[in-house]
């Protein structure tokens, strides 16, 4: 009976499934040197970029799709995807943005207009619809602090030295199948550079949205925090409801120099598909940070509620002495979603430390896998890691799996691992209901409690958003 109550509360309708009705410029499906040349030309790129892309394509063609994840999906036909779609009219400033796009962002709860006017808390926003960065707010004001916040396409043209130096430096071109694909076809994304000693005066945000039919989205993000700088960056993602699967293969590279810090938060809400596994985004993402300098710090926080398939392991290479890597994750799988996600912490520098807090929630037919690696090199004297992987099951048709790997060459390293799997217990649910709290609210209260350590890492506004999103996602799947 309790189970019956549970299933009802976890199958929320996808609320962001609307389609933006704008004219798009889209190329024919297929991937070849010609496609790459077209993308590069469309973006008016310098020759060196095109060459790098073509090199990546060559490498990709020799590679095979990895299948070690605990994921079950139909084969992807890479020739049936269109690799470039852009809103038809070119856009230079917010005033020129198609009102329909602005309206769409309002629906997403991100009003670019408001962002422009907000005086209190400032959040600079870069919005990427399909393959193109639509608008970047606050760039002017950020420039005063020397902060560069622009689309990666602009950066390739305007800051070639930085791009040449750091792109592919964290995630090599042929790091893995999906990263290689991205390196060849990436269409847009965000570029951030925080100069020495600067604390970025506002939160930076990017919203990604796949809109056009039959397209893939391949964005690429590169963030460089120079010595002693600090930045907090947030990304959000959504897509319309479609019957077909759509591919999203992004790459994110973070470079953190001496005494610098990056906090990177993601709220991923790509369309999850339906309860029979029809439609939904295939999300294959490579995210990696390198703590290059001493005393540097990186923190990944992710709230993953969407996508049909998630394959994602934000990682930290802790090279500088005393550098710190953190990974806080909430991954929700409901309907027929599958997630294989986790992190890699590579300890190289002395006294490096890492923390992993992973919370997996599975409901309905959702399958949730945590896969994590903690690697302590010989050089990493005094390294420490703390890992905690908790799984929460709602109902009895879902699954949770945990694969923690440890490779330690430093026998003095301190590694602690804790893992729990629990069901929302009938006793907990009943306790709350006995106090007059209805079943759905009771479930979401227990789930929020379970995620608390992760949500508390998010900036305020995003924590509120994440909470609301979680509620929406689990709505109706308890029962």
């Amino acid at each position, binding site marked *: 009976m309790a189970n019956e109550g549970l299933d009802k509360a976890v199958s929320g309708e996808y609320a962001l499934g609307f389609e933006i009705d704008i004219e798009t410029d889209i190329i024919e499906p297929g991937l070849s040197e010609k496609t790459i040349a077209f993308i590069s030309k469309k973006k008016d790129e310098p020759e060196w970029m095109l060459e790098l892309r073509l090199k990546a394509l060559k490498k990709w063609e020799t590679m095979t799709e990895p299948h070690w994840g605990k994921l079950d999906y139909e084969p992807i036909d890479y020739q049936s995807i269109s690799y470039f779609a852009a809103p038809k009219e070119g856009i230079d400033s917010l005033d020129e943005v198609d009102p329909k796009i602005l309206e769409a962002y309002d629906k997403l709860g991100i009003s670019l207009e408001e962002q422009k006017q907000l005086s209190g808390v400032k959040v600079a926003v870069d919005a990427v619809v399909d393959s193109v960065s639509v608008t970047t707010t606050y760039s002017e004001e950020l420039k005063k602090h020397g902060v560069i916040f622009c689309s990666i396409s602009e950066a390739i043209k305007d800051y070639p030295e930085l791009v040449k130096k750091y792109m592919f430096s964290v995630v090599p071109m042929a790091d893995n199948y999906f990263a290689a694909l991205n390196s060849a076809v990436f269409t847009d994304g965000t570029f951030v550079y925080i100069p020495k000693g600067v604390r970025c005066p506002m939160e930076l945000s990017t919203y990604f949205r796949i809109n056009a039919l039959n397209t893939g989205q391949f964005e690429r993000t590169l963030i460089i925090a120079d010595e002693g700088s600090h930045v907090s960056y947030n990304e959000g993602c959504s897509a319309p409801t479609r019957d077909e699967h759509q591919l999203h293969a992004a790459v994110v590279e973070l470079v953190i120099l001496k005494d610098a810090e990056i906090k990177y938060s993601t709220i991923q809400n790509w369309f999850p598909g339906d309860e029979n596994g029809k439609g939904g985004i295939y999300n294959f993402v490579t995210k990696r940070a390198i703590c290059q300098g001493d005393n540097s710090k990186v923190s990944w926080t992710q709230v993953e509620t969407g996508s049909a398939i998630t394959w994602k392991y934000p990682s930290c290479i802790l090279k500088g002495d005393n550098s710190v890597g953190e990974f806080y994750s909430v991954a929700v799988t409901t309907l027929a979603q599958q997630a294989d996600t986790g992190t890699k912490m590579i300890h190289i520098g002395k006294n490096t430390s890492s923390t992993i807090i992973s919370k997996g929630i599975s409901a309905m037919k959702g399958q949730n896998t945590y896969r994590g690696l903690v690697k302590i090199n010989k050089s990493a004297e005094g390294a420490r890691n703390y890992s905690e992987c908790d799984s929460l099951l709602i109902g009895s048709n879902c699954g949770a799996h945990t694969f923690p790997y440890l490779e330690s060459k430093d026998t003095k390293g301190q590694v602690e691992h804790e893992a729990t799997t629990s069901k929302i217990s009938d006793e907990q649910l009943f306790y*709350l209901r006995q106090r*007059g709290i209805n079943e759905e609210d009771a479930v979401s209260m227990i789930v929020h409690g379970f995620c608390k350590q992760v949500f508390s890492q998010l900036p305020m506004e995003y924590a509120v958003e994440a909470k609301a999103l979680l509620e929406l996602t689990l709505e109706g799947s308890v029962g």
Partner: protein
Amino acid sequence: MSSVMKIENLQAKIGDKQILKGLNLELEPGKVHAIMGPNGAGKSTLSKALVGHYDVELTGGDIIYKGKNINEMEPEERALEGIFLSFQHPVEIPGVNNAYFLRTALNAKRKHEGKEELNAAEFLRLMRDHLEMLGMKSDMISRSLNEGFSGGEKKRNEILQMLILEPEVIILDEIDSGLDIDALRAVSEGINKMKDGKRSFLVITHYSRILDYIEPDYIHVLKDGRIIKTAGPELVAQLEEHGYDAIEEE
């Protein structure tokens, strides 16, 4: 004389086991009813049946509350209508802030009664007053619900919830077990504070000590799934001396 709650010929199972075997009991308004009985007799099962716990399957009889049969009523509905159970073993809910939980519960009730909801500041004031009265530390506001609470702290937290939610029928399942002397006094004071001539109490206990404080009007003996004797408070001394085996069914 009208009763707030009338339990008639109640039969209930947990799993395959018949626990309640035709139990009759009437709770009168403004009165304190104590239930005593041997371990495993069905006292907790009765309290769970009254609040609609999933484990308990009713196989016969009626629970009449305010003149209505509530056998099929959802647990939260019963709570909103004023039935409160202090659990023998309150469950821990990690990460759920105690104050947030209790405010949500109170506001659900206020909404149900057509009253305005309390904002966070108003609620905190209310909670602090009660905490002080119960001799509870102020970190109970920010800690997770029952998580890592000592046995006594859990019981005080149940009483705190009772005081804030102001229910009409209050069922206390071994509220006194495991309490130290000061806690027992504080908890009893909390209970006495709730006496208003209208509320009814159903106090399940194994010890006379708490009864000295809260002065029950009736003592019921529950044995083998039925109430086998009902008497005044003088019965307690007799039970303490001769045990349950000496009780003759009426």
